[in-house]
């Protein structure tokens, strides 16, 4: 049945892109790639403020960047924050979405609203609200408060992929089948549901990780210097030393690219990753 369609597709792919298309894409690539590629080159350039091309190349700034006293501490703090956020979101969001999908389907519109709400709250406003409400020790300005804030902020990124994955597997039938065979709630979740929605969970976790790892606003406004993360160090160095700041930016870009590749890989196992990021908005 599919045979007659094939020749049509082949002629389709032989059509060359037109001039305006090439121009559009070329300008787009220029805009999107030039700042990033320049930063990579700048980070290994000895001096690049008088000439079109760098005057020489060196790894000195990476050595100095990795030797700064806060480098490992801030990376560790960013890692702690990202992992803690993923763990809390998984515990809070996954079971809830599962129950709403299987038992309380009527609540789904409400859940959708609660999940999209963080997009309507600018991060500074969330920070201001949380700092005002929780102004008593030990929560005030603590990493705990920060984790709560970051979980709220990254909630849509976890919710969409998990919700889509649950939608795709017909969770109710699977649950009932499991229960008929004598499985309890935890067995159903751990042995049937979670393995089946793993690509969704993985996509969500990767999205949350890369978002939280680059998070600046909430961290700087809620905890500030007492729990310095990598983006805070980067901003600090943009004012101290441009070359070292470039090395830090490269680290940050590289992590973002790595996670995007991982995300694509996870997405190809489940649904389209790009479709999810856009729906998450």
């Amino acid at each position, binding site marked *: 049945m599919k045979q007659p369609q094939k020749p049509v597709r082949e002629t389709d792919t032989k059509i060359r892109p037109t001039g305006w298309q090439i121009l559009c894409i070329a300008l*787009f690539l220029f805009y999107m790639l030039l700042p990033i590629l320049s930063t990579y080159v700048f980070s290994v350039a000895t001096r*690049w403020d008088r000439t079109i091309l760098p005057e020489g190349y060196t790894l000195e700034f990476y050595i100095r960047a990795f030797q700064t006293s806060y480098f490992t501490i801030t990376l560790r703090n960013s890692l702690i924050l990202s992992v803690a956020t993923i763990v809390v979101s998984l515990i809070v969001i996954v079971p809830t979405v599962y129950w709403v999908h299987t038992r309380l389907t009527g609540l789904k519109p409400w859940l959708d609203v609660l999940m999209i709400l963080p997009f309507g709250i600018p991060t500074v406003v969330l920070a201001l609200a949380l700092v005002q409400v929780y102004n008593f020790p030990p929560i005030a300005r603590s990493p705990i408060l920060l984790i709560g804030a970051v979980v709220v902020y990254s909630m849509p990124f976890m919710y969409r992929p998990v919700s889509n994955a649950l939608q795709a597997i017909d969770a109710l039938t699977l649950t009932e089948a499991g229960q008929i065979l004598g499985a309890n709630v935890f067995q159903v979740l751990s042995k049937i549901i979670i393995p089946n929605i793993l690509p969704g969970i993985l996509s969500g976790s990767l999205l949350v990780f890369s978002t939280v790892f680059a998070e*600046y606003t909430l961290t700087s*406004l809620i905890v500030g210097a007492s729990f310095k993360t990598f*983006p805070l160090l980067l901003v600090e160095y943009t004012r101290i030393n441009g070359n070292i700041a470039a090395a830090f930016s490269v680290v940050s870009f590289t992590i973002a690219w790595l996670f995007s590749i991982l995300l694509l890989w996870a997405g190809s196992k489940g649904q389209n990753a790009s479709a999810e990021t856009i729906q998450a908005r």
Partner: protein
Amino acid sequence: MMRRSKRQTGQTFDWMRLLPFFLFCLAFEVVPILFLMHGSVIDKTTSQFTLQHYLDVNRPLYINSFLNSIKLSGITAIVGVIFGTFIGYAIYRWPSKRVQHILITLSDVTTNFAGAPLAFAFVVILGMNGIITQFLLQYFHYELYPTFSIYSFSGLIVAYIYFQLPLMVLLILPAFAGIKKEWRESAQSLGANTFRFWRYIGIPVLTPSLIAGVTLLFANAFGAYATAYTLVQAKLSIVTLQIGYMIAGEIRKDPGVGMAMAVLSLVIMGLSIGIYQAATIRARRWSKS
């Protein structure tokens, strides 16, 4: 009877299971926002209702920060929508699926490249000694500074468009996919040329997505903080930076103005997101099936 009661207890049990999530949302989302709204209309010393905080917003610094934020978000949203739509169409009509996939992935990654590293990357190319600045000076003898500065409003526009453009590309691609090939063919066989096709079919079908694009991009820029903080700091006043200063300087005795500004920006964001949602629902009419 037994069955029914069992079912009922089962249902209350189901509700109980949602408790952790709702408590979490209450603690970190709903209560703080309500507190903010409450605080913006209450006088701290007398605990009486007051609109004074909102009247206090009416000072040149704060009014300017709102105007700057709205201008910045509006300009970058409109530029982002126009260019994003053309780039999106170029990607959509690109013959090779592989290239399409690569470009979509690129948009996916770059739209999340907001914040400090991106801001710094723009300093590298468009700063006082940036690469493009140097290039223009040496080859065209054109001095970019001081007409343009990456540390000013014009610089923020360039930096914001960086994350607005790919977001629009991702948003508009499904809309192009919604314009069915059959419509085009029927329009052609009925004698419509390309202009008439876009005028009477293409653009009307795209309109909800374009409106959704403008509002989403507007909200996206309005809420942004880190890029602006890294680039302009005190040189330009925008709403998010102002609110940020109020948190940082907690010594300030009266946070009322900050709360009022926060509530006002929530209203602006709420309006944009509301229109975005409504437009998206309309846009889905076409992209379904």
